[in-house]
């Protein structure tokens, strides 16, 4: 059995960042884009906690709590904006939101 080291956590976090980024860039459903953004923020949290553990410093954990709080606020505002849009346009597909362009 190999112990789980900081590098493992970093790899997990990098994978989550990649999945989140691909999700934001390729998915059409806005709810799924929101979920992908949450994934990126959680990748950051895993990084912060792993570093906090490795460095024996508590700053990272406090930072992670701030990030979690921020993610909640962002999700609330994001869903609110989405509902306002849905009332007017009846769609949650990103490519159908195309009034403004060149």
């Amino acid at each position: 059995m190999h112990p789980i080291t900081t590098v493992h956590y970093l790899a997990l976090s990098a994978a989550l960042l990649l999945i989140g980024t691909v999700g934001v860039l390729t998915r059409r459903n806005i709810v799924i884009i929101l979920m992908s953004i949450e994934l990126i923020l959680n990748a950051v949290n895993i990084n912060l906690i792993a570093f906090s553990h490795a460095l024996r410093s508590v700053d990272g954990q406090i930072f992670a709590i701030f990030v979690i709080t921020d993610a909640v606020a962002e999700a609330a505002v994001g869903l609110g904006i989405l509902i306002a849009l849905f009332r007017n346009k009846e769609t949650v597909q990103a490519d159908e939101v195309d009034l403004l362009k060149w």
Partner: protein
Amino acid sequence: MPVSNFVNPADLVRFLPEIILTVMGTLLMVLDPVLHKRSSYAFGHLSLLGLAAALVASVYAFRDPGPAFGGMLMVDGFATFFRVLVIGVGILTILPSYRFLARHDAETSEYHALLLYSIAGQCLMVSANELIMIFLGLEISSIASYILAGYLRDDKRANESALKYFLLGSFATGFFLYGVAFIYGSTGTVNLTSVHAALTGPNAPSPVFVGVAAALMFVGLAFKVSAAPFQVWAPDVYQGAPTPVTAFLSAGPKAAAFAIFLRIFMTSFQPIANGWEPLVWGSALLSMTIGNFAALLQSNVKRLLAYSSIAHAGYVLVALTARSDVGTAAAMFYLAAYAFMNVGAFAVVSHLSGRGERYQNVDDFAGLGQKQPLTAAMLTIFLLSLIGVPLTGGFFGKFYIFKAALESHLVWLTVLGLLNSAVAAYYYLRLLVMMYMHEPSEAATNAEPLSFGLSAALILPALGTLVLGIFPSWVLEFAGRSSNLVK
């Protein structure tokens, strides 16, 4: 650290502007049921009062500059300059909002509360000296701005604007945070001064790791200041948002984002400047070119000004590329001049666009010089300043930036930047020609007379633009003294 440090009265004084703005914002929401029926203007008056108090508090806090809350905040000349700037932008946003909100039957209390929260976040950003605080300020400012962009919630364009702003803004925050986490992991600290010390110290972390972190943070910040190649959201968001909000977005959050850009890259990342310089160089050139050439093709004035604001972000990045204190001072001066002329120009658009924001095209400005000479004269000052004609703030802004760039031997960037500003003159002049040399359009004929708030919102920034253009040394000296950031 002993707990007594956290209730130090000096710390509270240095944090006073943020406290005032937050308390005032909350007060507005609490008072909503009481004042709502009596006067819809009361909230505007109250928030102006709050902003004025915060302005005084910012200046007062500067009488005794220094760190607060164990080094988390740094109230220095740089922070005070930008605090005054973002609060000033807030005041200039509220003045045209009175008429705008009444015209669209919109709720006033929430609008002003959100505006105050956003400004509180920006004040926190510009005075933060720690990455956690910077992140917190950035998010307080951004989340409130996302809502403001979609404030007219029955308007499909506003919905779309808010959605795009939100999705791309939070995506950018994710990247910024990922970079911050790497900085924390490699240096063990989030304090900007300590990061600088760690990067220059004997046990400097792996440059690859720090480089990746700096690149990720650069991506996040470039999104926030709408610098190319991360500028695509800006025209859509600026066009769809309510016009006073667009004025605010293009000046306040942008100036604050540039402040943290300068602070992070000129203090913490100064030891690795050779690494990030080419990155900023490319982004500066790309922003100027994309912004100016795309603006040539626009017929919607809000969109035109949005592209011009991308180009102006490019000019400020030129100042950052110079990597010198002179460059920082030039960037500060430019952001102040830019805030005046841009907020003023958007106030004119807000005045002319009418109910439902119908009149926003270049053609709608036809004959404005005949019908409303004062409005047209003010817009002329703003446009001349955006071009960079002497005797306006925009001229000295560009002059100092390119001077700083030349002193740092950025000859090519200077030449290309100057060519760019020549291109820019075309689309601003087109608007001027439209105002003075065409028969009045429907929009110009039907425009309401200027209200008191709107006149103030036009005359104050016009005066500011002229003062910066005739007595630039007043502001430049302060900027020069404050640009030597705490390293």
